[in-house]
């Protein structure tokens, strides 16, 4: 699947809905789909709040199924993250009224998380999750 959205908070729900439906085809349980939705919500929110700093931009969401694994890539062409290791630390946040738990939730709910970021170019977050069940025939 491929989805490109304007960096608006109203579109986060659309991203969740699309990825949730895509993940459902692989046989994930409803609870697992909910976890995937949280991870996607966090990744897209990061694009809006941090990459584009509430300005205009495009968020690109790709979904792939590789065997029994779901792979979701969320990318932006925003400002980039100067220190990815620090950003992935719990309770790190550059914004007031935020908890800095975005990457923590992504890591908690997905099996794999890879972050590539270049300042001034953008950030790509790739998340993967294995499905233990087979999809319904």
């Amino acid at each position, binding site marked *: 699947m491929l989805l490109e959205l304007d960096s608006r908070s109203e579109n*986060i729900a659309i991203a969740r809905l699309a990825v949730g439906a895509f993940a459902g085809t692989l046989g994930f349980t409803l609870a697992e789909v909910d976890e995937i939705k949280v991870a996607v919500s966090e990744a897209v929110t990061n694009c809006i709040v941090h990459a584009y700093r509430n300005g205009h931009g495009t968020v690109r969401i790709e979904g792939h199924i590789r065997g029994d694994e779901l792979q979701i890539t969320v990318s932006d062409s925003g400002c980039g993250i100067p220190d990815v290791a620090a950003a992935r630390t719990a309770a790190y946040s550059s914004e007031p*009224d935020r908890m800095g738990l975005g990457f923590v*939730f992504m890591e908690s709910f997905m099996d794999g998380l890879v972050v590539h970021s270049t300042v001034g170019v953008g950030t790509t977050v790739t998340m993967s999750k294995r499905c233990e069940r087979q999809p319904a025939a």
Partner: protein
Amino acid sequence: MASLQIDWEERQQLLIVRLHGEFDMAGADRFRDVVDPLLEDGSVSHLCVDMSGVTFVDSSGIGALLGRFRRLGARDGAMSLVGAPAAVQGMLDLSGILRVIPLYDSEHQAIRGA
């Protein structure tokens, strides 16, 4: 279409806010827009947020709750949460916010417990 519906009720120093729908970044913005003016004059000493209608929450929603808690705490106010469905409660638990904001089963219990 608003992702989060918000109803509220003021009873003297108590403000009860009832949330219905998805508490993500869009919902958090709306929550702040509704609640912050109600806290503005300083007359509210207890904010009770009924989460029983929340179908989704992420760190943006939880951050908005924590922000209001900090604001109330700065003036010795109290905050409580009510009736989070299991999946929502799991998120609240994972975030650690329940270590500072109590979660009750009912609004009645929250009002008595504050």
